[in-house]
């Protein structure tokens, strides 16, 4: 167990190193010249050469990559090509905070809607109520955000005038509600299905049957014996949502005009601002890798029957 965790922790930096190599390679291989991006209309050969030399772009790619990694390891991702004289980390941190807030609220919404519905469906397994909940959750799961976003805005912002249509004001601002619901809806559907299936499985186990047979009240059986055990899979999804901080909310952030990581990642891809792209990808990958490790670890804590190998 410890050996396994240790191996995984050793493997992590290797993985991230290779991630950075791939992104770096894409940056070099990709079209466009960073100097052109940086100078824009003021491009002339002489200053281009000067900057090239200063930035070390004449060095072999491997050297450039090693230099980059050495700095990135201590949190220095260089300067943005597009936003003059702005450190990438200084540019990204506020965006990361915005995305993190949005995703945490979405996550809470997803759990708040998904858990009771999944529980309800599982308890009513065998009646018509179960498939109805399941089908509805699948319909909502498949609902494209391209529809959810304008639809919610139309209803709640324009018709009912309850919240502003777009923008950002932090967690305690009304404007977070609609985007968080937009992200939360498919998330809730995932929870419904997960909790339903794991509840049904748990309700069929011997210890639940025994608890019922010895006359434990139904409420106590459901909550104390079944529900606790059924919550296990939620742990996995928690990790995925954590990693989804980067990818999952990308489109929604753009649809609602939220100044998060989504907006800046897309902009930097369009404008070929490679230092920013690389930092985002590296941070995103680190989050994913760490999240996966934590999930595996939590799994063994929650359920000692699972052995890591």
């Amino acid at each position, binding site marked *: 167990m410890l050996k396994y965790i240790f191996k995984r922790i050793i493997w992590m930096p290797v993985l991230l190193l290779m991630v950075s190599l791939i992104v770096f390679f*894409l940056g070099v291989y990709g079209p466009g010249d960073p100097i052109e991006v940086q100078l824009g209309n003021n491009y002339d050969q002489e200053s281009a050469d000067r900057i090239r030399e200063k930035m070390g772009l004449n060095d072999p790619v491997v050297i450039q990559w090693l230099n980059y990694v050495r700095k990135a390891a201590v949190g220095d991702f260089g300067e943005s090509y597009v936003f003059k004289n702005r450190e990438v980390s200084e540019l990204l941190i506020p965006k990361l905070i915005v995305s993190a807030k949005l995703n945490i609220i979405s996550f809470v919404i997803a759990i708040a809607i998904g858990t009771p519905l999944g529980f309800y469906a599982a308890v009513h397994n065998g009646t018509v109520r179960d498939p109805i909940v399941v089908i509805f959750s699948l319909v909502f799961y498949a609902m494209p955000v391209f529809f959810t976003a304008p639809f919610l805005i139309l209803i709640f912002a324009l018709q009912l005038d309850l919240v502003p249509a777009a923008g950002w004001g932090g967690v305690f601002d009304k404007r977070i509600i609609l985007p968080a619901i937009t992200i939360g809806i498919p998330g809730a559907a995932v929870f419904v299905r997960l909790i339903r299936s794991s509840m049904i499985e748990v309700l069929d186990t011997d210890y639940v049957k025994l608890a019922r047979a010895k006359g434990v009240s139904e409420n106590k059986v459901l909550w104390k014996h079944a529900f606790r055990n059924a919550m296990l899979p939620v742990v996995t999804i928690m990790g995925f949502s954590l*990693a989804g901080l*980067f990818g999952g909310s990308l489109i929604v952030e753009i649809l609602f005009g939220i100044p998060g990581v989504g907006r800046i990642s897309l902009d930097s891809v369009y404008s070929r601002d490679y230092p920013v792209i690389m930092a985002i990808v590296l941070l995103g990958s680190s989050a994913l890798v760490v999240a996966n490790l934590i999930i595996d670890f939590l799994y063994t804590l929650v359920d000692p029957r699972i052995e890591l190998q």
Partner: protein
Amino acid sequence: MMDLNPKNLSATRLFMINFSRKKLGVICVILVSIIYLVGIFAPLLAPYDYSETNLLKTQSPPDMENLLGTDRLGRDILSRVIWGIQTTVIVTITGLLTGSLILGLFLGLLAGYYRGLFDFVVMRTGELVSSFPDILLIILLAATLRPRITKMFYSIEDNLNISGLVSSGIIDYLVIGIALLPLSWFGTMRLIRAQVFSIRNVDYVQSARTSGASTLRIVTRHILPNVIAPLVVTATFGLGAVALSEVILSFFGLGVQPPRPSLGAMLSDVSGRGGASVSVLTNHPEQLLSPIIVIWIMIFCWNIIGDALTDILNPRKN
């Protein structure tokens, strides 16, 4: 009398009977088949060409001439949806063939059968690929590859003295195909590999080996039939994701390029690659809803079919 004793039925018959019991699954298979047929026969079914504009009749509501109305350039929305479905069909089928079948199945079989170094390399590569945030990787790949691939095709055209290669739209599909590759193969590969692990040492494989069967024969005759079921399940779930990713790529202008049609490009047309297209929803709902309903049905159905297949094919349940 039809004999419904499971023991006397072939696996395929049994599967068909089990599947036909899943009413929603059957409905979804029918819906998806209709969508795919529409896509395949787009040239015959679409009343207009996808790029045919009619500037005298823009943003018109549905009428007899244009059953779903026209967009802001006066293009027939129904035709664009039909052609857009064709793009989805091409992209999902390419994704299925390259990602799931060739890479997923092939590497999974090899890694599972030979294990050792090959397995190690494939698994670590897979872990590497899946440690990227996927939407970001797809977007980045598409943005980086397109100019290179376009350049390559122009030089091919010049060298061979042919034309029409670039304008045929093949670049779009190639870019999308390569960008989506990392998405689909690893899940399939890992599953196939695990399946091969579990059967490579069962008695009948052992006896085939001792009786001198070649590796190729063992893999194709004894192992392959056992991995078909999990392959079908993961491939089905994968198709929805591939279809959606193409929509997202084209929405951001990194997939199918205008004027060629794609459901995602239609969405970005009405919402201008940003804003939430509320005014379109109120003033011209058909422009937004037509592509969305197709996407919605498709994703929903792939999931339902995947669920039904998992239910039937899951070996733990049988």
